[in-house]
């Protein structure tokens, strides 16, 4: 699929379908991290369909680009992208978070084709991404390692350990993206634990730092392309996003981190909050 085929209309349509399918899949399990999933839809689509060099038919192809979702609770949006790319049948998506599933709430490298690293205990994925980027450097490989972290996750000290390490090791094959939706479980990041000035912090740690609108297709694509060109230091992209984006029932609400769907009425309300309907692939 070449980039020229990706018109804004086609991307919008795919994002709407992803939101519809992932919301339905999460609802079927009765509970899920809808807020942090919805804020990543455009970023994850851009990565998997326009940036990452991967082979769905050969998930362990040595020269593939790697994506680590350190905020592992947003797993369902990566699962949706992996299914639509063909890493596994789309029919798996309705098993998210259900007994015996290969698509658990948080990412598990031992269960899911295409998942590079287990993550979910916050703060750990960026360190693992550093190790993978370092291995590529030592082996003289040209692929890149992408890592998505959360803003709440950035409260963790280990994120800043990894920030020091990646800059010291000059990991210019590492591109991190912070899903800055400005909310965490207990409230707004500004109220729970202030991160600002966030971009300045990453710059001070020695990272080439970009900011982008995490829901604007052109901004996401061009920023990711620019981050790939950075030499001699790791890149951080601070993605300004909206938690629960694209659903009238969740958009911008602090309480959409982990949503319970106890009954049919709640399910219907959440599905009706989405802009379009689609045929479910399962």
């Amino acid at each position, binding site marked *: 699929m070449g980039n020229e085929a990706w018109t804004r209309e086609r991307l919008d349509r795919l994002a709407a379908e992803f939101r519809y399918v992932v919301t339905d899949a999460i609802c079927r399990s009765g509970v899920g991290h809808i807020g942090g999933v919805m804020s990543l839809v455009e970023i994850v689509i851009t990565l998997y369909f326009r940036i990452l060099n991967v082979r769905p038919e050969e998930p362990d192809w040595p020269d593939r680009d790697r994506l680590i979702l350190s905020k592992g609770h947003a797993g369902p949006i990566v699962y949706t992208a992996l299914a639509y790319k063909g890493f596994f049948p789309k029919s798996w998506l309705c098993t998210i978070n259900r007994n015996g599933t290969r698509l658990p709430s948080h990412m598990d490298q031992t269960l899911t084709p295409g998942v590079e690293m287990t993550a979910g205990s916050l703060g750990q994925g960026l360190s693992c991404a550093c*190790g993978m980027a370092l291995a590529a450097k030592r082996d003289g490989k040209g692929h890149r390692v992408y890592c998505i972290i959360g803003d709440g996750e950035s409260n963790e000290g280990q994120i800043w350990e990894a920030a020091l390490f990646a800059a010291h090791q000059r990991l210019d094959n590492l591109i991190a993206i912070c899903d800055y939706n400005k909310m965490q479980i207990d409230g707004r990041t500004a109220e729970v634990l202030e991160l600002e000035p966030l971009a300045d912090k990453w710059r001070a740690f020695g990272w080439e730092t970009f900011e982008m609108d995490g829901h604007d297709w052109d901004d996401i694509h061009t920023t990711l392309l620019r981050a790939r060109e950075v030499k001699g230091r790791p890149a951080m992209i601070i993605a300004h996003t909206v938690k629960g984006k694209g659903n009238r029932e969740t958009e911008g609400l602090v309480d959409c981190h982990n949503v319970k769907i106890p009954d049919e009425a709640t399910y219907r309300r959440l599905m009706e909050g989405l802009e379009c309907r689609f045929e479910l692939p399962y």
Partner: protein
Amino acid sequence: MTPPAAPNFADLEMRLVYAHTLSELIARNPDVYCLEADLGKADASIPIVSTRHPANFINCGVQEANMIGVAAGLAREGKIPFCSSFTAFATRRCYDQITISVAYANNNVKIVGTSPGITQGPNGGTHMCFQDLAIMRAMPNMHVYSPADAHELRAVLFHMASTRQPTYLQLIRLKVPPLFPAEVTFDPQRARRLHEGDDVTLVATGYMTRFALDTARGLAAEGIGVDVLHYPSVKPFDQESLLASARRTGAVVTVENQSILGGLGGAVCEVLSEHHPVRVRRLGVPDRFGEVADQDYLFEKHGFGPRHIAQACRELARRRP
């Protein structure tokens, strides 16, 4: 230029054995890596590994949690990272990172905890970790090894580098007296029977094994037959050797350079209580923290030195029905 002669490992401090052996393993397999968290000089990997294999040596600085994550990432890419720090910082400080990024994810990371238990001496209670065997043993997917001398350490390191298995190794940094020949082998499924006797079983691991063996030899002169089992692997745990010995002797003493809660003594009690209940005495550190002190002081204070081992063996042997 002739290569330097192979060191006589039995004459070296264990940290030098570690560093030389790791260097040797990297020379054989360039996927082996040495990671440090600013204790490379203490472990002797600086300069032994760092100068011979600079590309395989990564000093992470004082950040154990990140070191474990970096190691997990390296392992995911097929590398075999050995991550070292003092036992306290190599295990309990980054326990969740090891649990999730290594054990749960089943990434092939080797964690090396140095200066176990009372061998941490002069650094005292903040550094003196008595629970690493217990907490690492409680983690699914994790193997836990505690070799007793230089040659066994080498056999364990060669095994670790050649198996795809998350592993924790307790590394004594001091020089310790030789127990085993250079050709000793290591099988994590097998305990070693170091002394035969029918009156009491004495189970030991790591640093305490030589004291157990000395005690058994001394008690033989008193007419007490001590069956000594050394466990270089605390997990997996060789149940059969323990049960066979306990069936003969009817009493078991355990001794470890650790808390008596949950480590080797705990493993022994779990097996015996389910399969063949006999009298047991666990020697080690009771439910207490460490302190700045030397070995004799700590042996006396906590009751697990040679004379306490001998006394426990006498008492349990004498009480035989």
